[in-house]
């Protein structure tokens, strides 16, 4: 079993932030856990799944975040402690329930862990999810360290029960995906028997429409705000350290760690006040007012948007305090985009304190001299990935006539990399080249790429706009299809909108680490269940053109895709092959590596495939890396010279 479960109280383990959060939930005695995978949040539930059977609680991967949150909420109404985790984007998927559930509140502790991604390392946006907690008027905790991640998670369940409200714990990439030393505590109490009382404490408690109606329930929630502030005041994870000067740094979450390092680096530790806030909504008003009154100048350092800073400004203004507040608003000393770091915080501190900023011009010059050597390394699909075959066939089927401007609508999953572009030097950027769909290189193929489930619906908008400049397609993967594509597909059928929709089924939610999904044929715990076939779902939604293709068969797949594009109605093509990484993990090997013979005419056609095992130069022609190549045969099928063959067949 995972050391997160077996560790004894007092043990000191090196844990990922996400593992620390999992341990916190275990220590709190969590009973129901549900989630949809999303980087950087996935390891929380992966860790909990590992130990759920032995520890006797329920955990699952749900079909999407909305389902997982509503499932957790349903469990909490019966009095048990439940947890839903998601990435920032996942929070957007649950917003309807998220804004409504607080009207009735909850009974058992209900904790939502939201992992934001400043710097958008793994995400479509840099959203600050703490705003959502403020919008819904529920508490939001933000841990600084791995130890706090564990402790605050456990604490959040009790807080939720005292306030009878869901609680948000906001983490960020830098905490979730880093490791630190965590001292373990006692594992939580045994499971409670679930119970239900529809009039618990107030009439029709779990029904916003029930008497006395939603506004009265909203009033009930507003009455909780002073209680929330009192909890915020009492929170032991907040900290005030006085300094010699009437100047304060106000901070929270991972930003606090950068502040500590920057203060040390600038030798300001004794000079400035340090005010770290553990509950970022609502902030502890009493102690904040005290700091505002004592310090004429304050710098607010937080990861994301000015959530704490805005509350501070409101509080100062409402209490007639004329303090100078620096941060991300007004004359900003900190950036509103990107991820913070010690250097940035040090710069802001130096600016506030009027310290000379040392700029080593010689060093910068050396770095600039070396920089041209540091060529980019663009993201690529894996060697032997079935998506390579699907995309090749799709590009053939759509055609490369230069007068056509196709629109390829992408979606979220490994296959989104076909929209990442290739950095390096861009080709001649003529007007025509920019306007036209440049399908020469796989990674330039996708034209629109936003959020889960968006592509299939956007394609319908392009059709309804009367777009005739070229072909319009939408692509998605298996897990994404089940997550949010089904309503979009049904919409096209119902409204009779022409749509070509390609679903790449590789059996797993691969990009986030190969979690199971309805296409896998097993649950998150590996129990065998019926595989939900995408073609059957499509047919039952009323799609009349439904075909299944093998993406390792380029000719067969291309011909089916041509028919689908020509079809006057809704056409779905499922391309199906298991994720190559999963095959290699299980079997160690797929087939023998291929090689390039002397027949290579140096045409460069194989390079367009986008396989990382293929090398190419004008002098030496094509080559295949024998370590990376898995023998999928796709490049051999597309080589016009027949120059790519299995290693053993080369003369």
């Amino acid at each position, binding site marked *: 079993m995972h050391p997160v479960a077996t560790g004894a109280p007092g043990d000191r383990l*090196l844990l990922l932030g996400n593992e620390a959060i999992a341990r916190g939930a275990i220590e709190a005695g969590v009973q129901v856990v549900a989630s949809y995978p999303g980087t950087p949040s996935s390891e929380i539930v992966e860790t909990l799944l590992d130990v759920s059977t032995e520890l006797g609680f329920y955990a699952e991967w749900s079909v999407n975040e909305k389902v997982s949150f509503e499932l957790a909420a349903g469990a909490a109404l019966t009095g048990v402690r439940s947890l839903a985790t998601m990435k920032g984007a996942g929070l957007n998927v649950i917003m309807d329930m998220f804004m409504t559930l607080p009207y009735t509140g909850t009974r058992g502790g209900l904790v939502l862990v939201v992992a934001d991604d400043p710097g958008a*390392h*793994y995400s479509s946006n840099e959203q600050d999810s703490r705003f959502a907690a403020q919008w819904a008027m529920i508490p939001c905790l933000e841990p*600084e360290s791995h130890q706090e991640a564990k402790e605050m998670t456990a604490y959040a369940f009790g807080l939720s029960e005292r306030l009878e409200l869901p609680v948000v714990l906001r983490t960020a990439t*830098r*905490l979730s*995906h*880093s*490791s*630190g*030393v965590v001292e373990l505590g006692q594992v939580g109490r045994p499971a409670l028997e679930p119970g239900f009382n529809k009039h618990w404490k107030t009439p029709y408690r779990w029904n916003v429409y029930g008497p006395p109606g939603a506004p009265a329930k909203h009033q009930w929630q507003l009455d909780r705000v002073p209680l929330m502030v009192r909890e915020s005041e009492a929170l032991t994870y907040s900290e005030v350290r006085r300094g010699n000067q009437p100047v304060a740094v106000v901070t929270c979450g*991972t930003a*606090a*760690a*950068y502040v500590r*390092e920057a203060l*040390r*680096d600038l*030798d300001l530790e004794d000079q400035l006040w340090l005010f770290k806030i553990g509950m970022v909504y609502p902030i502890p008003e009493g102690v904040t007012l005290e700091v505002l009154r004592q310090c004429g100048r304050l710098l607010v350092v937080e990861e994301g948007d000015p959530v704490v800073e805005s509350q501070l400004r409101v509080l100062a203004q409402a209490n007639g305090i004329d303090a100078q507040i620096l941060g991300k608003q007004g004359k900003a000393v900190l950036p509103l985009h990107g991820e913070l*770091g*010690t*250097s940035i915080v040090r710069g802001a501190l130096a600016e506030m304190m009027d310290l000379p900023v040392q700029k080593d011009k010689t*060093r910068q010059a*050396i*770095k600039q001299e*070396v*920089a041209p*050597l*540091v*060529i*980019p*390394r*663009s*993201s*690529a699909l*894996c060697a032997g990935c079935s998506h390579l075959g699907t995309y090749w066939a799709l590009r053939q089927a759509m055609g490369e006539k230069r007068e056509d401007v196709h629109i390829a609508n992408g979606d979220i999953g*490994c296959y*989104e*990399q076909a929209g*990442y572009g*290739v*950095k*390096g*030097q*861009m080709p001649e950027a003529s007007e025509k080249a920019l306007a036209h769909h440049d399908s020469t*290189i796989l*990674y330039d193929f996708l034209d629109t790429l936003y959020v889960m489930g968006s592509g299939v619906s956007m394609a319908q908008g392009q059709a309804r706009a009367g777009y005739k400049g070229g072909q319009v397609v939408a692509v998605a993967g298996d897990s994404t299809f089940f997550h949010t594509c089904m309503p979009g597909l049904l919409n096209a059928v119902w409204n009779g909108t022409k749509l070509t929709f390609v679903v790449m089924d590789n059996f797993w939610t*691969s*990009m986030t*680490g190969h979690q199971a999904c309805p296409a896998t044929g097993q649950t998150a715990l590996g129990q065998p269940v019926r595989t939900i076939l995408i073609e059957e779902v499509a047919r039952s939604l009323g799609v009349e053109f439904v075909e299944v293709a093998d993406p390792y068969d380029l000719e067969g797949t291309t011909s089916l895709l041509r028919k689908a594009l020509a079809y006057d109605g809704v056409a779905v093509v499922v391309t199906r092959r298991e994720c190559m*990484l999963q095959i290699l993990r299980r079997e160690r090997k797929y087939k023998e590596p291929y090689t390039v013979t002397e027949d290579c005419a140096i045409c*460069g056609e194989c*390079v367009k495939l*986008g396989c990382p095992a*293929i*090398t*190419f130069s*004008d002098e030496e022609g094509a080559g295949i890396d024998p*370590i*990376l190549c898995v023998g999928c045969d796709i490049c051999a099928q597309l080589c016009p010279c027949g120059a790519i063959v299995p290693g053993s067949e080369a003369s």
Partner: protein
Amino acid sequence: MSKKRKAVTNVVVAGIGGQGSILASHLLAQTALKDGLDVKLAETFGAATRGGSVMAHVRMGQVWAPTMMEDEADVVLSMEPLEGLRVATRFLRPGGWALINSRPWVPVDVAVGRCEYPSVESIVDGLRKLGAQVVSLDATELALQAGNARAANTVMLGGLFALGALDLSENSLFGAMDERWSERLVQVNRRAYDLGYQEVSASLGATK
């Protein structure tokens, strides 16, 4: 030397997804933990499961932030030359060590003709310009000699310990390896470690 430099040792482990860089960084962090140091380890990788740039910051001593500032690394250990230069340009302090596996992993950008992979000599030269003490070795070849190409990361750890730049005990590292692997894998990796140690010791003109 600032207060901070005395208090903290910073290492960046870099490479390509699938080469075992993250695993090497975890072994290093576990070693520091066994030696009684506080430690923070931050992983950064792109969206791709394999083949993308990977970087881990290992920070030992009195640390709060999981990531270090620019020009703060005492050592850059890279499983791939270009990634070593990429990371060193941002993080290596002048006078710090750059320990580089000399086997290139050519990015897709080169295959599609949008840039050229620099020669390993020019990469080493670039590292020297940045003020690095450079040691490069063919860790992949040494790992094959040890019995498994995937042990290149432990070859590099052997090289790292041979530098003598870190105040960590070999026994703690071996303990961390014992906890992670079966006896068979430990044997392969201990051989790999020794080969890396000897190679780097030899190139530094010292013996173990």
